[in-house]
C-alpha cells in the first residue's frame, strides 16, 4: 500500500509536467507566419505608416528558381497606418492571412518625414520587443520608405537581404558609409553629444521602377537602389545631410575605416585624381588635449596600403618615389578629414564623437562644457598627423603611362 502510494506521489509530478511542458500556448506554425525581410516607416498625414516587405516562400524556393514566364514576385509589399507604431503593426491582421514575424527583418528604412518627426518611438519598439533584433540595419530615404521596399534587386531574390548585403559590401570594402544598426543608433543618440549619422538609400535613375519581375529580364535596369549621403540626427530627429566625401572623412576621424580605396592627385591640393592606394589596415587615435585653455583634438592616423593605380610621374620602385606617393596619400587623408570637420562644424553637429572623448579624458571639464557644447564644438580645431605607408606596389612598378612616354622619347 505504502509503495503504491509512493509510486503515485512520484508519478504525479511527472504526469503533471508532461502535460504542462507541451507548451501549447506559444506554438508557432511555420506556415502561419509571414516573414518580413524589410520594413519601412513613414509619417503620412500625422500617422505612422509602416510598410512590410513579406517574403513569399513558394517563389523563393529553389524549384522555381529557374523561373517561368509567369513567375511570382519574390516578395510582396503592403502598408498599414496607425497612431502608434504598434497600432499600425496590429492593423496588419486586417489584411494578412499570416501573423507578421520580424526576427528575420534585415533592414529598416525610414522615410524623411518620419525621420524629421523623430524616431525615438521606433527605437523603443526595437529595444522592447524580444523577437525583433537590434542588429537590423537602419537607412534613411528622401521620399517614402515604401518605394524602396517595392524595388526589386537583380541578382538577389530577397530585396531586403540585398539591401543589407549592399550596405555590408560598402562597409567592408569602401568605408564611405558605414552600416548603422539599431543598437548602435540607440547608443549614439543617447551618447554624450547626441548626434549620429545614418546612411541614405535612394532610387537612382529615371523611368519605370523595378517593381515588376518582368523588369529583371532586361540586362539593364532603368532604376536601381543606390546609397548616397549621410543623414545627421540630433537626438532622434533628422536635421540635415552630409555628403559621401564627408562620410569618408568622418570615418577616418572616428577610426571606422576597415578597407578602402584612397584616391589622390599628383600634386597636393589639385582636384585631378590620378592615383589610388588600397588601404589594407588603418587605425586612428583621437586624443583631446588642452592648449592654452582651448581644447584641441589630435588625430593620429596609422595606415598600411597597397598601390593599385599610378597615374603620376613618380617611380614607386625608388624609395624617394614611394615617399612622395605616401606624402600625397597623407595629404589626401588630411584634406578629407578637415573637410569633414568643416562640414560638421558648419552644422554644429558633433557626429565625430569629440564629446565622448573629452568626457572620457576629463569628466570635470566636460561637466562645464556639456550645456553649451553645440556652441563650443564648432570652435574646436583638429590637428592631424597622417602616416600611410605604402607597403606593396602590386605586380608592376613604374606607371605604365610613364613607360609609354619613355618609349616615345
Amino acid at each position: 500500500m505504502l509503495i503504491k502510494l509512493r509510486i503515485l506521489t512520484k508519478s504525479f509530478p511527472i504526469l503533471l509536467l508532461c502535460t504542462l511542458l507541451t507548451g501549447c500556448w506559444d506554438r508557432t506554425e511555420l506556415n502561419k507566419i509571414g516573414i518580413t525581410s524589410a520594413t519601412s516607416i513613414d509619417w503620412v498625414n500625422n500617422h505612422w505608416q509602416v510598410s512590410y516587405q513579406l517574403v513569399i516562400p513558394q517563389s523563393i524556393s529553389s524549384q522555381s528558381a529557374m523561373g517561368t514566364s509567369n513567375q511570382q514576385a519574390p516578395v510582396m509589399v503592403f502598408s498599414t497606418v496607425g497612431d502608434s507604431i504598434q497600432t499600425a503593426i496590429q492593423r496588419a491582421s486586417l489584411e494578412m492571412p499570416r501573423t507578421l514575424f520580424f526576427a528575420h527583418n534585415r533592414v529598416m528604412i525610414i522615410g524623411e518625414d518620419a525621420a524629421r518627426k523623430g524616431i525615438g518611438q521606433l527605437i523603443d519598439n526595437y529595444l522592447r520587443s524580444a523577437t525583433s533584433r537590434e542588429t537590423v540595419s537602419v537607412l534613411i530615404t528622401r521620399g517614402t520608405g515604401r518605394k524602396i521596399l517595392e524595388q526589386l534587386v537583380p541578382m538577389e531574390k530577397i530585396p531586403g537581404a540585398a539591401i543589407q548585403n549592399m550596405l555590408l559590401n560598402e562597409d567592408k570594402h569602401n568605408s564611405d558609409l558605414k552600416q548603422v544598426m539599431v543598437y548602435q543608433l540607440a547608443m549614439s543618440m543617447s551618447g554624450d553629444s547626441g548626434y549620429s549619422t545614418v546612411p541614405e538609400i535612394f532610387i537612382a535613375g529615371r523611368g519605370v521602377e523595378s517593381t515588376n519581375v518582368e523588369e529583371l529580364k532586361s540586362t539593364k535596369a532603368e532604376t536601381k537602389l543606390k546609397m548616397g549621403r549621410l543623414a545627421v540626427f540630433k537626438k532622434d530627429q533628422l536635421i540635415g545631410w552630409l555628403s559621401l566625401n564627408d562620410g569618408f572623412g568622418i570615418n577616418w576621424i572616428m577610426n571606422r575605416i576597415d578597407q578602402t580605396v584612397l584616391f589622390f592627385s599628383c600634386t597636393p591640393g589639385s582636384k585631378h585624381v590620378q592615383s589610388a592606394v588600397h588601404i589594407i589596415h588603418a587605425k586612428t587615435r583621437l586624443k583631446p588635449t588642452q592648449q592654452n585653455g582651448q581644447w584641441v583634438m589630435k588625430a593620429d592616423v596609422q595606415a598600411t596600403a597597397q598601390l593599385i593605380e599610378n597615374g603620376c610621374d613618380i617611380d614607386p620602385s625608388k624609395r624617394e618615389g614611394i615617399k612622395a606617393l605616401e606624402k600625397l596619400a597623407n595629404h589626401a587623408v588630411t584634406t578629407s578629414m578637415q573637410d569633414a570637420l568643416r562640414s560638421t562644424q558648419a552644422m554644429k553637429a558633433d557626429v565625430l564623437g569629440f564629446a565622448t572623448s573629452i568626457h572620457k579624458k576629463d569628466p570635470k571639464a566636460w561637466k562645464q562644457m556639456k550645456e553649451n557644447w553645440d556652441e563650443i564644438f564648432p570652435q574646436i580645431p583638429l590637428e592631424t598627423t597622417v602616416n600611410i605607408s605604402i607597403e606593396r606596389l602590386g605586380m608592376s612598378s613604374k606607371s605604365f603611362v610613364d613607360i609609354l612616354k619613355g618609349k616615345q622619347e
Partner: protein
Amino acid sequence: MERISKFQLAMMIILFQIGSTPLFALGGKAKQDSWLAMLAAAICGLFLLLMFLFIQRRAPDKDLIGLLRLCFGNIIGNFLGAAFVLYFAYESMRNVRDFGEITTITLLTSTPQLVIMLIVVVLAAYAICMGIEAFCRVVEILTPIVICSYSALVILIFSSNLVKLDRLLPIMENGPVPVLKAAFPDIVSFPFGQTVVFFMLYKLLYNKKKFCRVSMIAYSSVALFLILMNMLDMMVLGPTLSGESTIPFLQAVQLIQVGDFLERLDVFVTLLLFLGLYVKLTMFYWASAYGLAELLGTKSKLPIYGVGAVIFATSFLEPDYTYHVWLGIEVSVKFFPIFQVLIPLMMFVAILIRKPHSPPPLADTKSNNIMGEETIG
C-alpha cells in the same frame, strides 16, 4: 543523515551565486562604474562570508536554526529561526516570480505565468523530496554546463567585435560616492549577501576540514566572474543601454553575429537563466522547508509541500513586473540586511561572548550528541 562533499559545496556556491545575476545590470545607478560597485559589494560579501564561516567553525555540526538556538537560547532562537524560514521562502518566491516573468518576456509570451511557475515549483519540490544530496548532484552536473555556455557566449561576443574597452571610461567621474551608494545595500544583499543560506548546508559536509578555504575559493572565483560579466555588459552596450535594459546580457548576446550563421543565440541565455534561477530558488526553498522541519521537529515531508504551496501562492501576489522590481529593489533591500548582516553579526558577538563557556571541541561533542539524538529520533 544526508551528506555532501566539499566539491559539491563549491559547485553549489558557484552556481547559486551565478544564479540569475549575470543577466541583470547590477549597480546601474553607478553607470559605467557599476563593476566597481560590484567589486565593492563583493569585497563586503567576502567579509560577510568570513564572518559566517567563523560562526560556523564554532559549531560545525549545527545548521542555522541550531546556531540561532545556541546563540540566543531556545525561545529567541526559534523566533529568529522562523523569521529566517520566512526570509528564505520570500527569496525563493522572488526567484519563482523572476522565472515566470522572464520566461514570459523572452520566450513564451502567451503561456500563462501560472503554468510556468507551477512547472518550476513542482520541479523544485521534486528535487527537494529526493533530498539535498540528489540536488547537490544535479548542481554538480549543471555547473560545468553553465560555465561552458557562459564561456562560449563570451568568446562569441568578443569574436563579433562588440567589446569596446573605452566604454568603461571615465572611471569614477562623480567620485566614489555613487559607486558606494549603488553597492550598499543593493548589490550586497543581491547576490553576495545571500550566502547566508549556506548556514543550512555546512553541517551536511562529510569532512569539515578546510571547508572554509573551499568556500572562500568558490566565492572569490564566482565573484570575479560576476564582476567580469558586468564589465562585459558595459563594454558591449555602454552605460545607457545596459542600464535601461531588462536583461542586458540577453541584449548583448542578441548582437552576436559571427560568420553569418552564429546569430540569435538568445535561447542559450534563456537556458542559462533557467538553470541559474532554478538552482537558486530550489536552494532557498530547501533552506526554508528544512528550517521549518527542524523548527517543528518533524521528519515528514509535509513542510516541503507546505512551503512549496506558500511560495507558489505568494508569487502571484505582486500585480506586475514593475511592482515586482520595485519591491525587490526599493523595499526588500531595506530588510534583507537584517538577515544577511545584522542577525549574523549578533550571532558573531554572541558566539564570541559564549566562547569561554563552550570552546570549539566541547561544542563539537555537544552538538554531536544533539545531532545523534536527532538522527535517532
